[in-house]
């Protein structure tokens, strides 16, 4: 340590030698790629204010006036209001079932390790590797047996089962990492198992809970395959199902209306992302690096 060379470059810029030219070229490439990501989301705005005739005549010109009719038509065709309500219901259901269940199981697996709980942990862990595609048919039949086909609980209950393994693993590693002293002190003061868990450990696990809530929400929000199987009647359609059925029913021929639908469909996610991108990225990374 004593022989550490004095560093002649400003700290914090400790990167390999980079010439100005390469930096400019690479920066330009990166900006172009970012534009390629954003462009499909921005281009619809060029089409959406035109009538069909105006679009066919001059698709790439500026719109002559701002017309909202395409938005209104697309909104009516998708009925996104109902879709949002259904989706929120599914998201809340999935969160309410997944997060507490995983927290409780993760706590036991972390703090009460016996042979039985270890076996059960592997039983849960194995579920993480089961692709949902594999069980679609029996799931559908099962929901028929339980009389929850074509209902929103019939969607978020299986979703929960497939979320539990991952979040149990995350909670387990989180609780394992927590210091033991606090719980010990409480135990000496006479607190029972339940008290220690609910009053002391669970509040300490707040970061994991925030992470789980956020990502379970995102998962339920974007789900398509399970919704497609489980939901049949149009009034129960979630957002993604409505968007898909708009695509199949109306197609791309009426481009201004399609553009309006694209904007309406993407807007909630994009707005959520703009507000919460820091947590979303951090959360995804924390999940991916641990899992």
């Amino acid at each position, binding site marked *: 340590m004593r022989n550490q060379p004095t560093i002649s470059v400003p700290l914090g810029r400790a990167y390999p030698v980079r010439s100005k030219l390469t930096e400019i070229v690479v920066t330009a490439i990166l900006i172009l790629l970012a534009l390629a990501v954003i462009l499909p989301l921005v281009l619809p705005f060029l089409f959406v204010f035109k009538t069909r005739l105006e679009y066919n005549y001059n698709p790439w010109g500026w719109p002559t006036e701002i017309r909202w009719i395409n938005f209104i038509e697309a909104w009516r065709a998708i009925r996104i209001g109902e879709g949002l309500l259904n989706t929120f219901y599914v998201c809340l259901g999935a969160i309410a079932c997944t997060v507490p*269940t995983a927290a409780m199981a993760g706590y036991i697996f972390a703090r009460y390790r016996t042979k039985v709980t270890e076996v059960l942990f592997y039983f849960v862990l194995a579920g993480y590797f089961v692709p949902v595609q594999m069980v679609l048919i029996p799931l559908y039949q099962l929901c028929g047996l339980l009389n929850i086909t074509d209902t929103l609980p019939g969607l978020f209950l299986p979703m929960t089962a497939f979320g539990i393994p991952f979040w149990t693993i995350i909670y387990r590693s989180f609780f394992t990492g927590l210091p033991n002293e606090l719980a010990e002190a409480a135990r000496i003061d006479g607190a029972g198992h339940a008290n220690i868990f609910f009053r002391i450990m669970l509040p300490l696990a707040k970061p994991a809970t925030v992470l789980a809530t956020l990502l379970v929400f995102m998962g339920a929000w974007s789900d398509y395959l399970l919704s497609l199987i489980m939901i049949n009647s149009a009034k129960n359609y979630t957002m993604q199902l409505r968007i898909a059925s708009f695509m199949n029913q109306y197609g791309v021929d009426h481009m201004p209306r399609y553009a309006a639908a694209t904007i309406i469909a993407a807007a909630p996610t*994009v707005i959520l992302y703009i507000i919460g991108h820091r947590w979303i990225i951090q959360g995804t990374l924390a999940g991916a690096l641990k899992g």
Partner: protein
Amino acid sequence: MHKNAKTFAIMPGKNRSKKKRDWNELIFKTLLLTPAVLFLVVFMYYPIEETFRLSMTRSTGLGPTVFVGFQNYVRLFQNEEFLMGLKNVLRWAFWSVVIQIPFSFFIAFSLSVFKNRITKPLRVIYYLANVLPSAITAMLGRFVFAPRHGVIPSLANKFNWQWLARIDFLGDPKLAFWSIFAVATWAYCGFYVIYLMANIEQIPKDIRESAQLDGATPWQYARYIVIPMTSYAIRIVSILCIVGSMKIFDLPWLMTTGGPGYATSTLGIVLYKSGFVNWQYGRAAAVGVVIFLLSLFFTIIQFSLQRKESDL
């Protein structure tokens, strides 16, 4: 967890209330574990057992189920649609690893090495495409590629590039796969970028500094330091990518419904069509088992990689 066991042992009054305490503990453990176990048994393990059982039967969900042994599997491997789906997911996995991962690595590396005021916020933009639900991604994909009205054909018409305007991106059996693949690249690379970047940024500072003192160029830095040090992350991301490819369904289903013909069919699409369009439960279950076995195979590879890593 031996620590725990010890602290239990020195607790005062242990002997007197041992029995009672143990009962409490047992009840507490059971109560907390029951919901998770119940969910998994009902909505995962029972359906898994059912999948294996159904895959050995001929069943439509209504009439009687007939046990047929491995007939479903044998028939699958003689079925053109299934073979095409299998070929497509394997092709998808191969090209994802060959194209998406190096491309993402290039972006992640550039973002981390050429970090300046302009490039710093770009990571957030790249990841946006990954957050969009697949239904919306498919919608945007059709917005760009749809014949005549899509962005590309429409632009080609504007500039009078007839050769480009004539291409049917989603209707040409050879091109459809690549159009969907392009949309998937657009959508998925964001995740690989932030994951790889997080791993690149974890390279200790003194290593970066010594590379700088030695006057390493970005190329040498990538070749001799970053790639060896993040090889584990690269392998993990590749496996994730492969396992994900086995399950691909949303994008091809929403953009082409597996067509034209079976050109963009995947295992997920074959399963969905046999199960929920043709009501051949047995066949669909057999496809499910194939998807499971393929995922399992690659997951085992991942674990053996991890084990080797921890041996080092």
